[in-house]
């Protein structure tokens, strides 16, 4: 077994494992209950795709695939930022937490005590 065959087996196996993980993240992005889950899953999927392209650039000895991986990273980042900015309102309103409900149920007489 020559060293080239060893590298080929190693990175080929790594690509197969990455494909399985990418499939798992696709299923996760389908079953994610909220839109944020899907965006997180797509972000992880993009990271694994960048890894696959980088492995391919070494496996096939093609230098331009490293450039493709960099462009993919930039596009993935911009896509996540755009999808996130679609959901944030310009004047955001904070959600109700548990302590807000505690404050509403507190007796009204306590707030008058500070003024005296």
């Amino acid at each position, binding site marked *: 077994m020559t060293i080239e065959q060893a590298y080929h087996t190693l990175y080929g196996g790594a690509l197969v494992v990455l494909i399985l993980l990418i499939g798992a993240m696709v299923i996760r992005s389908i079953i994610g209950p909220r839109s944020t889950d899907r965006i997180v899953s797509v972000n*992880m999927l993009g*990271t694994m795709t960048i890894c696959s392209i980088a492995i391919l650039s070494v496996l096939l000895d093609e230098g331009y695939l490293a450039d493709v991986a960099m462009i993919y990273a930039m596009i993935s980042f911009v896509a996540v930022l755009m999808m996130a900015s679609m*959901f944030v309102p310009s004047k955001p309103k904070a959600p109700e937490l548990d*302590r807000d409900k505690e404050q509403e149920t507190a007796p009204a007489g306590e707030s008058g005590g500070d003024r005296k």
Partner: protein
Amino acid sequence: MILEWIRFFVAAVLIILGLCSFGAAVLGAYRFGFVLNRMHAAGIGDTAGIFFVIASLAVARGPHMDTLKLVVLVFFLWFTSPVSTHFLGQVEYYTNPLLGRHVKQTDLPEPADSPVQAGTEERKKGDGDGTD
């Protein structure tokens, strides 16, 4: 020749570490029940996973111009991954109406007319249930 095989085994160990990091990220994405926890798991793959994989490729490729491109790619992902996580956490904070079930306390600022700010000191004196 023996140095080539040593280099191969270093590359193999590094890429197995990277794949284990990605596996941990995917496992966390399935096991955790809330999206902010899933972001924590995704951060493992975004930082440790891609670092180990690119380190393995750099060891296998040797000093070359493409290795420098891959190292730049790692630093780009290290800078952009926290920004993405920050924006996604902001989206979850502002759009999830059931956030109070998962998050008990937060350091984000309250709105100006919130009743929480007016009664903060009273609650600190009043309840000693350890929620502070």
